[in-house]
């Protein structure tokens, strides 16, 4: 059974989702929406043409110079510098007229051996053959990352400011309370895959770049629009690039970073720039990280069909092999007890239940369930709309759960080539106590032709949940979901007993529960 069949049909062309109010998603036409959007200070639009893209010709500048014959020694030295050991061997092999025959032959043999070995290694982990950019695009949470104008987005966990990483490798910080929008640029800040603000701090912003991690310290009181690169801490570790995912601990003390090229996950003590590599056999890299909001677990997925859940007190991990593909995305419930994740090649959402290790005595086994349960089936469903049939569903690009634990947004990949199969955001209503439940809410759609690329919930929105969506057009919009929360959870603190959730006006489709957990 497809869960999406219970959803209200997608909007007609020309209508965009504005907000949720009284349990209904309200929509408006594009023009009036545009007016409204432009009046809001936080809605942004980055036209692709406005960005100055620098041409990347670092490697191709060689062709501009004339060939110049050097001595064998000079060429060997240059080959060693540029290409390392293999470069040196290739150079020796190529200049067989100048070197003794045995040397060229033996270097050719060693080169062939190395290539055989590396091709064997690559056949084990095919992602290693990808180029840097392709790898980030492959493992990023952003849909079609390489084509995105807005490549990364992050709300500050405590205030109303956010950081936006753009296609031209700059990061802009927007704060509604301040007139200045600092632009962060750094020599090493290339191919930004993710940004995240440090919790319990006003100024620190971690940026996952192609070759390193940058931690910017942007003074919120400063009036400077171009903080110097001296404000950035560079964290790098040999072999740990490109960095595709980062996660701060909710207590703000540690930062973890992951790279598909590196089998170790790095735990950084940012202030003292010390890193502890956490390495386990299997997987061939780490692609995506997510720290549970209560700080007790970290989800780390690998490029192969395996993901790990680390327990953060003693840093031990549980292995969770998947049947089909790698874990593409995951998100934690606000109390850190439930992990929802999606697997590449499957159209379902799985759930795992964890107990908080701090409550119990033992820390060795923290997961209650032996196997993940399917909570939602998002296989393709055809809706009949006035504009024709629209097929919604398919693989999941990313998942986001709002901080109150009442809305779950799912970004579905769709197929940009085929007509009528757009990428959409499906929003579920969720409740975690007393039992876990999923209910349909609706689809979030933008203006025609724009597909959602990434989304994030505002960490502390007062009137429910606020979903920020970055569109392929370069527009950033905010979709509020107005509802009364059953109780804003505060991590590590037991809140007041939760009041019964207000079900003001259940619509006829919304009261059908998609998934209800059975308590045995």
């Amino acid at each position, binding site marked *: 059974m497809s869960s999406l069949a219970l959803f209200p049909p997608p909007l007609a062309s020309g209508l965009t989702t504005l907000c949720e109010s009284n349990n209904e998603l309200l929509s408006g036409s594009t023009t009036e929406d545009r007016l409204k959007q432009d009046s809001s200070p936080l809605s942004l639009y980055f036209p692709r043409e406005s960005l100055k893209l620098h041409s990347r010709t670092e490697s191709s500048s060689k062709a501009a110079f004339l060939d110049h014959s050097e001595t064998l020694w000079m060429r060997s030295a240059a080959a060693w510098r540029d290409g390392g050991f293999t470069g040196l061997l290739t150079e020796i092999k190529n200049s067989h007229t100048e070197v003794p025959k045995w040397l060229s032959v033996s270097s050719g043999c060693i080169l062939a051996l190395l290539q055989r070995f590396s091709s064997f290694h690559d056949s084990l982990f095919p992602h290693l053959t990808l180029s840097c950019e392709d790898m980030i695009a492959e493992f990023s949470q952003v849909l079609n990352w390489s084509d995105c104008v807005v490549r990364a987005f992050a709300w*500050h966990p*405590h*205030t109303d400011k956010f950081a936006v990483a753009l296609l031209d490798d700059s990061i802009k910080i927007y704060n509604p309370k301040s007139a200045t929008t600092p632009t962060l640029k750094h020599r090493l800040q290339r191919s930004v895959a993710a940004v995240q603000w440090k919790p*319990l*701090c*006003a*100024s620190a912003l971690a940026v996952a770049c192609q070759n390193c991690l940058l931690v910017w310290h942007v003074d*919120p*009181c400063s009036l400077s629009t171009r903080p110097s690169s001296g404000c950035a801490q560079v964290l790098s570790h040999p072999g740990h690039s490109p960095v595709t995912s980062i996660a701060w601990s909710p*207590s*703000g*003390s*540690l930062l973890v970073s992951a790279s598909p090229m590196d089998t170790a996950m790095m*735990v950084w*003590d*940012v*202030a*003292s*720039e*010390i890193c*502890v*590599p*956490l*390495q386990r056999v299997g997987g061939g890299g780490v692609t995506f990280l997510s720290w549970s909001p209560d700080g007790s677990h970290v989800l780390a997925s690998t490029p192969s069909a395996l993901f790990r859940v680390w327990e953060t*007190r*003693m*840093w*031990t991990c549980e292995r969770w092999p998947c049947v089909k593909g790698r874990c593409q995305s995951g998100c934690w419930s606000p109390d850190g007890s439930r992990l929802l994740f999606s697997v590449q090649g499957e159209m379902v959402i799985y759930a795992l239940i964890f107990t908080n*290790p*701090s*409550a119990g005595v033992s820390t060795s086994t923290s997961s209650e369930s032996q196997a993940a349960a399917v909570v939602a089936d998002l296989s393709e469903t055809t809706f009949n709309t006035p504009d024709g049939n629209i097929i919604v569903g398919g693989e999941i690009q990313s998942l986001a759960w709002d901080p109150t634990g009442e809305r779950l947004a799912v970004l579905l990949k769709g197929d940009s080539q085929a007509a009528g199969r757009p990428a959409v955001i499906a929003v579920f209503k969720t409740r975690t106590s007393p039992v876990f439940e999923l209910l349909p809410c609706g689809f979030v759609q933008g203006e025609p032709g724009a597909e959602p690329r990434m989304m994030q919930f505002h960490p502390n929105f007062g009137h429910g949940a606020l979903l920020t969506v970055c569109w392929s057009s370069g527009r950033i919009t905010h979709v509020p979901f107005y509802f009364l929360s059953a109780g804003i959870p*505060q991590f*590590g*603190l*037991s809140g007041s007993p939760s009041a019964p959730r207000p079900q003001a006006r259940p619509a006829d489709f919304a009261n059908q529960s998609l998934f209800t957990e059975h308590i045995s």
Partner: protein
Amino acid sequence: MHVARSGKLSGKEFDSRSSEEIIVTVFLSTNPYKMFSTQQSSWFIRKVICWRAAASIAWAVLLLPPTTAVFVILSRFSLFHPIHTISECFFLLTSASAIFSLILLFGVILMVGFLNLEYYSVIPTIPCSKIALLGHLLHPRQLLSSLAHCIMGVIVGWCCAITIGGRYETLGFSCTQTDGSAQMCLNEYQVILLLAGAFFGFSHSLLGVIHNMNYVAFHTVQQYKYLRFKGSLPLVVKCSATQALYSVRNFIVVYFFVGYIPRAWMCKTLNLELNSSVHQLDSVAGLLDLSLLYHLWISATFLLFTWHITLLLFRIFVTEVYSFPVQSTFTEDAHQCLPKVLTDKQPMIVKFLALQDLALLSQHSPSRRSEVFSLSQPGGHPHNWNAISKECLSLLTDLTQRLVVYHDTVATNGRAKSLSTGSERKTSSESSVTSGTEDLMSPKPTLLMKTPASVFARSVAGHPQSPLTAPFTPDLDSPFASPALRRLTAPVDQCSPWFGSVQSPHVMRRGPKLWSTSTDSQVNGSPPPSPASVTSLKQEPSKPSLLAKFLQNRKEQVKNFLAKRVLIMYLFNKLPEASSQALFADSQSHIWALEGMSYLVQASYSEDQFGVVQTTLPSILGCMLVLQEAVDRHFKLPHASSKPVRSGGSMGDSTYKTLRFALRATLKTAIYRITTTFGAHLNAVQMSAEHRKRLQQFLEYKE
């Protein structure tokens, strides 16, 4: 702080050419913690630290046979006869000589482990000038350690020579001289291995001082011992191999120039001849022997690897989390409880482990937190919370005072003077006890610093702690060498107020100082007079004695004279940012105190049933805000915010170099943790207007 040291090692340890038993008995008999046996804190050393050290040594000993096997295979490996090599190695490993040398190596490992236990420290020793570093290197204690390492190096070198075999196997061999007579000749190949062992041991011990290898750092990321060991193993291999490479290079150079001296001495004492038919090894041709170089390198790697592994295991075992009970049912166990252990100032390792436990329990364990917030059964007093918060706050207040005093010293001088602060860390433990939590603002002259006057003075007095601090560290140039401090150190008026009586040069002169004149003038070294002299000059007019004037003049003359000498300038010039590092040398304890406090306060929002935390909340916030201000001011000084150079490839843990940044970040996070938890409720907390303003900044996320 260095945990108790029992004076000197008995000489018999070193000639214990190693049967295991002797060393074991020495190890037990010279247990350094005997002197604490009467004190209450010693239970921890006896019951925990010693056992942890013993366990680490046992693991190192267990790891030795496989390491040796790998060494044997690598040293004898021949590419063309692999099978032959392996069978040969197997026979060698089971032979009597191999077992004997293995026993010798066991002895060496035991000794290394014992030296680790004896010399380790949880607070790094940071020399602030080259001369202070030289003082560390030439300290008798350090010399003793170097000697021990030399002898152990010779033993390992001999074992290597035996196991490699071939031309290295014996010290003498019969040879025919040019005149045809048969004689016993000296085998230079073994001599070079023995000398190399001594050299590697010596350089290892020297580098240990320079890189602070005896400093045991605590990790922020907790891991199980095995996983931590597994994670650091590749690093140790790499570091040993590179270090061995450098050591071999240095040794070759040394042997090339002065190798003939020990060789001649050996010939003379052992009554052996030099074989004149083969060329000597201290020539270019002799040293360019690739196989010899390879064997030297592999021996050095083996030596360093076994020692580093012992050190690594020791560090891992000692820094393991120890869970102290928060309160105990029986009064006789009360001294083992967290509130009591926290307030003990000696030994430092116990205090550190207790603070680490506090930080972890406040973060992870609700049941233990509830014990902290609980009231005493008869009486209903929050004794646990009071003791813990008081100790943490006094630690933080102490750091604030240190920073304020340092800043004042620097500020009165107008610019960041080159002030050697080699002996600051001693103040931490001592002043932390005396300074209370009350009146956090006013800087009290509680820095009862002992005068670490000179090597001789200290060794006579039997100074119980930190003998490794610079014997030549110019004390007068430390930031505490303000008149106030000198007054405190002077025996007469210890209790005089901060700004008070006239400082006469006689008092200054009375302090037993070996280097005071030269250092005092030299460190500052430039025409503008040093702060000390400025202040003393300022106070002079009230009592312009002729003698004082004469002394002053002489001092200036000597200063000007010495300032022109390049070597002296080099030795006495302060290393950049070293004083900042020294100021924050023990900041790991402050970091834990901040974390523990902030997590407990955060948890108290929902878990504290009796409101015990509420009563201390104003003082906690006040303390943190004052510290925040002091830290901010400190980071505005030159060199304070410059990042240290990353030094890779050394076993020395360089985390102490960045402790001040970690402290700054932790402090901010701690304040934010409290403000985000309590939010607007903090407006009801009583505090001064200035603090409220500062707190408002935090509430608005503008810090």
